[in-house]
């Protein structure tokens, strides 16, 4: 393969992208060292890299990561319970669906995280507030995708269930739920992403909890390399989280 053909290939293009990013970071390092960029506003990228082991050890990143994971876990449990339950309820009662589906759609577009001061008053400055915001932010997509999955079950499958004289509970457990599972998981994935974004955001805003609080604390201490390092850590954690949920979704989809 000629160098030109390699660069034009997918792997070549990705390598060029990665090299450009590294070059941009090196350029920032040089600009700061040359005092073109103020080092009291943007720390040296090398200092940020050096700060990573320090914040992992001294700021107990793993414990904070675990706390945020627990909050996401509780929110996902609530999402599975009320989101999937809500979707099934709307599927079961058509009139309720006709009355409420547009409301749930509007809820998905509503800026729910802005209600965090209200949640603070109701639940206090605690993990419950963070979990409840995450749950509220992720609820609408889980309900809508569950409903979509159940409503999209092929009629022939439902007829097969009827011909076997399955009860309604059996019909739901053995036919509707398995058929709707891929769509339900898409909803859970969307809900979890919304929950995760809001959980980290509220941790930062109320200065409580795991990774979000870490950024706030380091910023208030004016620990610039630490702040940038913590932001980098949250971005990496988000990327890993999205990647894992995407893989799980592919694994659960019928094509796989």
């Amino acid at each position, binding site marked *: 393969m000629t160098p030109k053909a390699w660069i034009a290939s997918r792997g070549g293009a990705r390598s060029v992208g990665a090299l450009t990013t590294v070059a941009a970071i090196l350029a920032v390092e040089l600009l700061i060292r040359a005092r073109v960029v103020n080092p009291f506003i943007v720390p040296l990228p090398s200092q940020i890299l050096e700060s990573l082991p320090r914040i992992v050890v001294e700021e107990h990143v793993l414990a904070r990561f675990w706390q945020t994971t627990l909050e996401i876990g509780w929110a996902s449990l609530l999402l599975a319970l009320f989101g999937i339950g809500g979707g099934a309820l709307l599927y079961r009662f058509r009139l309720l669906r006709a009355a409420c589906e547009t409301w749930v759609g509007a809820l998905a577009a509503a800026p729910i995280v802005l209600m965090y001061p209200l949640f603070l*008053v109701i639940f206090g400055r605690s993990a419950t507030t963070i979990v409840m915001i995450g749950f509220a932010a992720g609820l609408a997509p889980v309900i809508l995708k569950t409903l979509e999955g159940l409503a999209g079950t092929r009629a022939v499958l439902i007829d097969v269930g009827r011909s076997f004289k399955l009860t309604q509970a059996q019909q739901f457990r053995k036919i509707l739920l398995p058929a709707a599972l891929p769509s339900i998981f898409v909803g859970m994935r969307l809900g979890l992403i919304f929950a995760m974004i809001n959980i980290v955001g509220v941790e930062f*805003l109320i200065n409580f909890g795991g990774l979000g609080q870490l950024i706030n604390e380091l910023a208030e201490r004016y620990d610039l390399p630490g702040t940038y390092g913590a932001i980098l850590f949250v971005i990496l954690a988000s990327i890993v989280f*999205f990647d894992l949920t995407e893989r799980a979704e592919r694994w659960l989809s019928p094509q796989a």
Partner: protein
Amino acid sequence: MAESTGLGLGAARSRVLLVRTAIVAAILVAWEALAASGWLFRDVVPSLGAIGAAVGRLLVNPDFYANLGVTAGEIGVAMLIGGACGLAAGILLGANRFLSQAFESLLLYLGPTPKIIFFPVLIMWFGVGSGSKIAMGAVSCFFPVAISAAAGMRQIDRVFIRVGRSFRASTAQIVTKVYLPAMRTPIVNGIRLGLGVAIVGTLLAETKLSNRGIGYLVIQAYSLFDMPRMYALLIVLFVVAIGANELIGRLGRSPAAGGR
């Protein structure tokens, strides 16, 4: 037959309306009962009358409109900056396969991260005034617009581009006469999503560090434990946010409907 179908539709609509009314009434009654029960701390759930009065007071208060103007201005400038940069990045990535393969993964990975975590950095770069809030809104808005525009670019029928080229159109003419009109729906959808996240980003930044704007009013009501005012602010905010979202959605839909 058509008449009976029409009657059936009318009856179904009436039943839906009845269910909706019943749900709203049940929620309002439950709320009022909770407010009167004393189960929660006093004023955490104020009576509907107190919330209604607070909405009324808010809507005749000139101070509210001054703060609304500040927030609207910040969101408007954020949308202009973030939207324009997102559109340019999206067109560039969508038009060039090599650039897309090289850099679009960065966009896709950074897109769903919680943007509020960048706020301490933005304060250092742009100060504690409106600049950091505008930057927060612009960063939030950039990603959905760019991702949507890049996807929209790839959906354009290649024939349109070839026709433009055969007429020897310049790059600027191709962008304004072919790309933008053909990408109308994805761009409007991107702006719609971008507006939503720009509103959230700007307002959250205001709640964190500000002395003006709607976010500041919300956090001030929280600090003073003025719960009816907080509910009133949130209600007005939700109506404005959902209304703006719907308005942009209609702008995107209207030409297609008209063209039919």
